[in-house]
């Protein structure tokens, strides 16, 4: 499998804040890769190193098989980047920003820019200073897509967008993905990762906790056990985490020996039982609680 992004022992330290430590991730061609972590976990730091905005203290980062320090221009010419909060030059119109970006890339992107702006209902004649946060985000999306890049780096890309625009955004991203683009999505909206991503990594305090396919992550994480007609489960019930009781239904996360679980449940009153795959939120909490043990 051809790696589009590969980091090896990538480390970035700041003077006062934590950055990333010995980060090893691999994003393969065609992946929609979710990069998950809480605020300050190191997601944006990783992205900025990949884009050459900041430089790593140690380790290596490659995009398209090229070193990000030495081949920055070549790499950036085929990347579309959506920052978490986009800033623009004052006094510009949407069309000016799009034209400026296409001039940097020495490509005529007018047709695709019009198509993307149309899909997002973004008026190209409006002044950027007058745009709302959501509309500025739409412009960032158009800027990232208009040159049809083969790698999209999205940093909290859907924050500030209403559900309809989010749908339009994902339609555009999936179009690009079907056309062969690889997508690197940093997010803490876990449902988004679960819905769209094929692979994911969880980063915690600058360190990689786990990296795998979303399917494998779901398998390796704890399962959600729900006991209907059950009002009480002891807090020290073996292997149970995050016990909740709502409307005579008791639910908990379980990871361990299921035969033993069945034996232990014989002492508990309930009328029905279901064991389901956890959602992304639960996977995330599972790995976060376990810290770096999984790596």
């Amino acid at each position, binding site marked *: 499998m051809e790696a589009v992004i590969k980091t090896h022992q990538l480390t970035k330290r700041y003077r006062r804040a934590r950055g990333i430590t010995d980060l090893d991730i691999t994003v393969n061609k065609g992946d929609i890769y979710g990069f998950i972590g809480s605020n300050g976990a190191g997601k944006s730091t990783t992205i900025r190193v990949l884009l050459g905005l900041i430089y790593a203290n140690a380790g290596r980062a490659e995009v398209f098989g090229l070193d990000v320090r030495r081949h*920055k221009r*070549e790499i950036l010419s085929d990347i579309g980047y959506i920052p978490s909060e*986009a800033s623009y030059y004052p006094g510009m119109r949407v069309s000016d920003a799009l034209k400026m970006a296409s001039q940097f890339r020495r490509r005529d992107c007018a047709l695709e820019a019009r198509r993307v702006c149309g899909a997002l209902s973004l008026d190209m004649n409006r002044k950027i200073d007058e745009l709302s946060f959501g509309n500025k985000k739409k412009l960032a999306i158009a800027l990232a897509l208009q040159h049809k890049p083969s790698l999209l780096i999205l940093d909290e890309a859907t924050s500030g967008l209403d559900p309809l625009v989010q749908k339009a955004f994902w339609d555009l991203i999936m179009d690009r993905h079907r056309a062969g683009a690889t997508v690197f999505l940093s997010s803490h909206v876990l449902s988004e990762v679960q819905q769209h991503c094929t692979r994911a990594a969880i980063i915690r305090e600058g360190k990689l906790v786990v990296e795998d396919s979303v399917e494998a992550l779901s398998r390796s994480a704890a399962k959600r056990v729900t006991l209907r007609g059950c009002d009480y489960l002891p807090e020290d019930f073996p292997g149970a985490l995050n016990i909740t009781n709502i409307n005579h239904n008791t639910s908990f996360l379980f990871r361990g020996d299921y035969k033993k679980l069945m034996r232990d449940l014989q002492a508990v009153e309930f009328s029905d039982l279901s064991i389901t795959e956890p959602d992304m939120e639960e996977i995330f909490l599972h790995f976060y609680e376990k810290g770096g043990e999984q790596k």
Partner: protein
Amino acid sequence: MTVLRNEIRFHWKGTLIWSLSLSFFAILALTLYPQVANYSGMFNAMVERMGILGQMFNLQNMDMFEFMNYYGLENGNFLGLGGGMFAAITAMNIVAREEGRHTAEFLFPHPINRTTVLVQKFIAMLLQILVLNAIFIMAGHIGAGLIGMSFPQKRFTDFHLSLLMMNLQVAVLCFGISCFRKRDSVVPGLGLVLAFYFVNLFININREVATFKYFTPYYYTDIGRITSNGGPMWDAIGLGFAVPGLIFILGILYYSRKDLAI
């Protein structure tokens, strides 16, 4: 040249406002010349009695009512101080603004290297300073024409060449400093210009500290000194550019390797 075009688009109004404001004062000062010249005897006597103040502005070694000296003194201050401040403000912001206003995150993920950005920004800054100086020179000619006077060609050219060098020295220094900064602020630039200006006044009073003349570009823009030197003081200009030039080069090297604050 996209960065250059953007800078010009972004700054042309400000450059025009500065140029026209300074030019207005230049024309005003020139139109007052005939009245002032009528009282030259009285003014000369005043200057003699001014003592340290006259010394401060280097008035005692020249006839300040000779037309070119008058122009050099009055308009030299407008373009020297005003133009110096303009150069400092422009240069101080032109690089640091990208990080200060977070537009670095728009600009630098594009396939353009940092040195190219700096070169284009530097050219944009030079053009702005040249435009300001050119408009000011035109205003000087208009003002002189209004009172039926004309400038001695060589002294006028030498004087404006020196002022342009002074503006550029400030700009080169502030551009270099701007590369090290993460936030846009004009305060350090304006502080430097005022410091340079007062160092020159200090040198005029106390000749024993004349070694400081290489630290202030205002030294070589003095019309009296340019006249007695027979042209621009290229030794002072050359040495004056040494430290700003070094800071400029270090600034560019630093900027191409620094972590951008976003």
